[in-house]
């Protein structure tokens, strides 16, 4: 015992700032609980009771040893709530999991809100002659995790996307008979990876969180086990995902070789000051761009996107489009705008070319698609191009417009995929453009919502999409990227065509004769509620964007 005590004294026990990763801890904890309750089967009440006792004891210990009574109280409350919910829904395991998962996302949102309140206004930024408060920054856990505006805002985006996915996916998974227990824990684990990715301050953290989110998403993509399309999509996603991870990792290794560290801020400083062999620096940055390019679906690394978007179960596609993009772009921005800002001359021209290619090719290829999900996949590629505008600006405004774009895009695209999963319940097959003929006349409300989401994706004034697009375009103009904005406007015009075409087909065309015999469209309460919330957000943000613009402006801060 004395030897042990001596050893403990000699080792410098690090202080771990658990608060910095509290949203991740909440998400991960709920993931584990949901997984346990799903595997428990009939004995879920007993397992839940046991869990509650253990967690209550742990909370009591925590409160007693550290004096963190508030945290301990929250943990105890969560345990009791889980127990109560298990008792109420003991005969409907999927409903129980869905509710617990929603609770997990709400908890993570609350934790992020608490962090935001803690750090908001802790620093000021000056743009031109005007100065305004921004979210303060800190790094924690051995400089591995950053707590800053970008991380917090992206956590909001990811949690909101997850929260919307649950009601939109529930009925779809039921009707497709793919509603298995692993769905919800995987959703939570991938969200954990995404929030971690958004807050990684170290390249190895970037790699690990990308893998956490990807591995969960591979399985979610393959969730329709008997559906060949889903399997094929998952296989392609997996192979290209692993391939791009390897490229990214090689970039990380070369960075480590140059800088002697994998810390993002330190690596940026080393790149800028050290007269390292320039070829090696460029190799490292090139590999990192390629790696992130795959994850964010930038041309020419977008090949997997349409296939995966088409093949994956529709709610999973929505979640993937919304949340993965937000997290990957946050890390992309932290690395390049936050850390490599002094090396602009190397990477901005490269990203410039990629952005033009992405915007134009994504829009042009979307025009010729017949499958609606595939079309939205190509449109997601084009949208990645617009987000790159905010990146190439390399300014605070650019970053805040990028964050705003990702949040608005997340809600809008989730809404669009939500309507699609509602419509697919009727036909029980993938939606081609022809299947949408006359849908607007028979079911005006869902079709109207779909039209609203498409108009927002197109960036029509009055919708949230316009605000987002306007913000990125303005930041790029202010940074002097006029040509790039011209390309973006051209791409938007092309994109406008295929969004409008869907609306025209829905409302103007005659219904095909065989549609008379199709099953009726039945919405569920959850689905209606989810879609209504998404539509409301799109309209409200489109009309009164002030609050969100202000939040995004405050969020443009990098740690380190």
């Amino acid at each position, binding site marked *: 015992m004395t030897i042990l005590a001596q050893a403990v004294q000699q080792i410098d026990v690090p202080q771990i700032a658990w608060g910095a990763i509290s949203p991740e801890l909440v998400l991960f904890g709920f993931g584990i609980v949901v997984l346990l309750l799903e595997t428990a089967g009939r004995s879920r009440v007993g397992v839940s009771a046991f869990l509650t006792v253990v967690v209550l004891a742990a909370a009591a210990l925590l409160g007693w040893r550290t004096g963190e009574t508030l945290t301990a109280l929250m943990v105890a409350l969560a345990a009791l709530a889980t127990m109560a919910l298990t008792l109420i829904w003991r005969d409907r395991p999927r409903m129980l999991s869905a509710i617990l998962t929603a609770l997990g996302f709400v908890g993570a949102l609350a934790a992020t809100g608490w962090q935001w309140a803690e750090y908001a206004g802790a620093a000021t930024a000056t743009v031109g002659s005007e100065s305004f408060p921004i979210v303060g920054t800190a790094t924690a856990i051995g400089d591995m995790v950053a707590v800053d505006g970008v991380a917090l805002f992206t956590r909001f985006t990811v949690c909101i996307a997850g929260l919307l996915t649950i009601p939109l996916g529930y009925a779809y998974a039921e009707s497709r008979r793919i509603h298995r227990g692993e769905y919800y824990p995987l959703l939570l684990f991938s969200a954990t990876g995404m929030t971690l990715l958004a807050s990684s301050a170290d390249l*190895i953290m970037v*790699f*690990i969180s990308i*893998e956490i989110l990807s*591995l969960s998403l*591979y*399985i979610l993509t*393959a969730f329709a*086990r*008997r559906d*060949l*399309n889903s*399997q*094929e*999509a*998952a*296989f*392609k996603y*997996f*192979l290209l995902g*692993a*391939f791009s*991870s*390897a*490229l990214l*990792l*090689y970039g*990380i*290794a*070369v960075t*480590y*070789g140059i800088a*002697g*560290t*994998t810390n993002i801020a330190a690596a940026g400083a080393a790149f800028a000051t050290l007269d390292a062999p320039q070829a090696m620096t460029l190799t490292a940055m090139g590999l990192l761009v390629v790696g992130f390019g795959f994850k964010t679906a930038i041309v020419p690394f977008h090949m997997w996107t*349409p*296939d995966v978007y*088409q*093949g994956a179960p529709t709610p999973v596609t929505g979640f993937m489009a919304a949340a993965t993009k937000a997290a990957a772009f946050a890390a992309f921005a932290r690395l390049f705008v936050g850390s490599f800002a002094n090396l602009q001359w190397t990477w901005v021209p490269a990203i410039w070319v990629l952005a033009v290619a992405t915007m134009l090719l994504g829009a042009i290829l979307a025009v*010729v*698609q*017949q*499958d609606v999900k*595939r079309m939205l996949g190509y449109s997601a590629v084009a949208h990645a191009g617009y987000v790159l505008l905010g990146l190439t600006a390399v300014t605070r405004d650019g970053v805040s417009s990028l964050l705003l774009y990702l949040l608005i895009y997340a809600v809008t695209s989730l809404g669009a995929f939500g309507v699609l999963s509602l419509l697919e319940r009727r036909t029980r097959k993938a939606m081609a453009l022809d299947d949408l003929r006359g849908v607007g006349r028979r079911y005006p409300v869902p079709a109207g919502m779909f039209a609203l989401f498409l108009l927002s994706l197109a960036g029509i004034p009055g919708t949230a999409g316009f605000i987002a697009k306007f913000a990125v375009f303005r930041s790029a103009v202010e940074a002097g990227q006029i040509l790039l904005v011209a390309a973006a406007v051209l791409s938007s015009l092309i994109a406008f065509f295929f969004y409008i075409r869907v609306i025209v087909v829905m409302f103007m065309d005659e219904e095909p004769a065989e549609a008379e015999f199709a099953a009726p469209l039945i919405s569920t309460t959850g689905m209606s509620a989810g879609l209504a919330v998404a539509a409301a957000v799109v309209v409200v943000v489109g009309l009164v964007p002030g609050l969100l613009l202000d939040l995004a402006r405050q969020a443009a801060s990098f740690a380190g």
Partner: protein
Amino acid sequence: MDVPAGYYLILAAALFTVGLVGVLIRRSIIVMFMCVELMLNSVNLTFVTFGRVHGNLDGQVLSFFVMAVAAAEVTVGLALIVNLFRLKASTDADDVDGLRS
């Protein structure tokens, strides 16, 4: 005998290239998958070499992380491939082309 660090780096780069080219040109799903693993392991070699060059342990620690992640990736990847094989009875990547515009 002293082997310069550059030799290790060149070996790692060569292995990485073999893996990269393999993924791009081979058509057997299993071989493509093996090539991805080869890429990851060549990165490990790079990490360890740079760790030695810098005289810190970071590189070696990082390679352990990569190994753990690679192991997790193998489990998921093989499960996907097995399930695909059940439906398709083929391990040729060219047969997996149902998703087209």
